[in-house]
């Protein structure tokens, strides 16, 4: 009897070990697959041989020359500052807009609330890019001399921010209403409740909104390529547009390794920022997913 139990336990243990080994092997393999393209990008940025195509994964000659070239012989530093500027300003505007709209829809009951939310739901179902031709004309009218500018980009990235209020509203919905009521009884005005009671409790959603809206301009290609199409001054580009052009047929032989270096320079801070604030990102997307 006792002997039986021991064998069963031993069998289970063996199975668990086998399971652990398989799981770790599978995960390690998958992890490698996931990392290899990124690793390729990094090692290619140190490649000494010229040209776009290499027959080996690792370079034969290692060099830092691509980075030197990137910073001193291309417009990349300018593009980087452009993107940073656009990202910071549009992040501030977007965050304020999103928090304001989501808070109001979550907390205040007024007659136009439902109709507004329905209209915004419908607006959000049109492809965002569809309206760009008209936006282009509008910008031309509003900024006649400089419609292909960073200001236009900021407008494009932040003017429609109200449409993406859902995640933040879902968060505010979970903050107990009793807090507001208690503060109102103590004589606080609605704006004091928002700034002094609710916002300090909403750190995670504020950080989530900031993170998302700061990263968006770094990743956008579609809007910037449309706004800047045919612009003669390439110094107005953002990183994504400029780097995309480097990989076009005419330029790729000359610029591929520079592209890789630039990609590392762009990706490292963004990735670090993302990893640092990952917790808030996960809270945001899971909250959004579960509520639908």
């Amino acid at each position, binding site marked *: 009897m006792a002997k039986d139990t021991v064998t069963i336990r031993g069998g289970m243990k063996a199975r668990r070990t086998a399971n652990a080994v398989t799981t770790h092997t599978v995960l390690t393999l998958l992890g490698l697959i996931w990392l290899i393209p990124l690793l*390729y990008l990094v090692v290619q940025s140190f490649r000494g041989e010229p040209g776009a195509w290499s027959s080996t994964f690792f370079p034969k000659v290692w060099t830092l020359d691509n980075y030197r070239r990137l910073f001193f012989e291309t417009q990349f530093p300018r593009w980087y500052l452009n993107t940073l500027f656009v990202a910071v300003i549009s992040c501030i505007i977007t965050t304020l807009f999103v928090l304001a709209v989501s808070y109001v829809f979550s907390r205040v009951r007024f007659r136009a609330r439902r109709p507004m939310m329905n209209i915004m739901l419908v607006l959000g*179902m049109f492809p965002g890019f569809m309206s760009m031709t008209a936006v282009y004309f509008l910008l031309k009218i509003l900024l006649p001399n400089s419609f292909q500018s960073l200001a236009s980009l900021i407008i494009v990235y932040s003017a429609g921010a109200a449409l993406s209020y859902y995640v933040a509203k879902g968060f505010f919905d979970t903050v107990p209403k009793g807090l507001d009521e208690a503060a109102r009884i103590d004589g606080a005005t609605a704006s004091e409740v928002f700034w002094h009671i609710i916002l300090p409790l909403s750190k995670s959603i504020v950080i989530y909104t900031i993170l998302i809206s700061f990263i968006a301009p770094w990743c956008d*290609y579609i809007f910037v390529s449309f706004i800047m*199409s045919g612009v003669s001054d390439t110094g107005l580009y953002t990183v994504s547009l400029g780097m995309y052009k480097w990989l076009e047929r005419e330029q790729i032989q000359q610029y591929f390794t520079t592209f890789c270096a630039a*990609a590392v320079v762009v990706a490292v801070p963004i990735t670090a920022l993302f*990893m640092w604030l990952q917790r808030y990102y996960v809270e945001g997307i899971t909250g959004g997913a579960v509520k*639908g």
Partner: protein
Amino acid sequence: MPMDLGSFFKRLGRKCGDFFGGFARGDLATKGSYLVMGFGHIRRGQAARGLMYLLVEIAFIAYLALFGGQYLGKFFYGFFTGGSVGTVETHDFWNDATGVYEKIPGDNSFKIILYGVLTICIIVFFAIIYLSSVRESRELERTVLAGKKPQGFRQDLRDLGDKKFHLTMLALPMLGLFLFTVVPLLTMILIAFTNYDASTEVPQHLFRWVGFANFGDILGGNAAMSGTFLRVLGWTLVWAFFATFTNYFGGMILALLINQKVVKHKKLFRTIFVATIAVPQFVSLLIMSKMLTYGDSLEMSGIIVQMVSRIFGAELKFGVGITVTRVCIILVNMWIGVPYSMLICSGILMNIPAELYESSRIDGAGPVATFFYITLPYMLFVTGPYLITQFIGNINNFNVIYLLSGGAPGDLLRYTDGAKSTDLLITWLYKLSLGVDRNYKLASVIGILVFLISATMSLLVYNKSSAVQKEDEFQ
């Protein structure tokens, strides 16, 4: 949700009664407010508020007279008859005095539609402000008659931080939304009912209203175009289906693997996978597209193509063969998207009540049965709406297609109007909006059709989801 027609008309009737009856019953100050906005306010001690209403009225009249009115006229000129948008085409004019042809600029059809939409919206807004100003004026009369003191301007301002705080908060976001989303979107929707394309480019030419002709063309009237549309639509739906489900199940399986008790270094593994989300998509997708480039010779090809050739002796014709390109796109999309759904799934998986697993284990269920009878149904139940959102998101997934294949390979026999065989509706729309293939009317029609698809899908879900219907109580 829409109220029924009967109660709507009852409300409308009551409002009209208030409006006209209020005019008949009102005293001079109230009657005056019907013509000069803010008149009653100024007469009854709300000077600042009244002046602001007056200014709104003056600004509105000035806008119509100096600017909006002319565009409104041109907007409606051919609207019902299928005529041109605007009347004067840009033309050459022989100047006898100088002896040369001069270009006389004509109407800009696009601007006419844009400003026409803007003007109509402004009229609607003005009507709302007007109605609320006369209503206030009537209430003000009653307040004064009852012997109470009307609210002062200082209190009005204080209200903006308190009772009317929502107006303060919404003002700027809604202005931005109105100017840069609503007006442009309405304009582009109207463009779908015109013949605006490269051959009628403004300002050199006028374009005209054509009713539903473009929709007729794309839905069967023009065989080549509707064939292209159906092929692009078909691939868009196939892509959205596979992209959504491969990512969803991939993410779930990955999350289950990592969440197992036996796994050490959970955090390390999670970080490795999350790295691909953190790297900006244009970087990760562009490098992938270059690794997959199938060039004229092996030496001119991407590293993956070279490796496949060396190891398996096979040619990976990415961007040349249709099926292989499509499969590669879906695989690369897993690389981009699985970690994302892994993050979402791990959160939810941890919330599955442990008792469920406990009881299934007691019933003797193995890991596979547990997955299919407990984990999967639970996940599908909780993340149903998310799946639909993802599906719609994938229909509009510009980046993955445009940065990976750019729509290639092309197939001129089966695709027209600049579309290629891995184009989605959204990347086709992009190509139709700029460059050599630009065709604004077609782009707008596609945008509207994408909207109809997304709206239908969402309606199916939203009607079933009680969380949305009872949104108010749900909190």
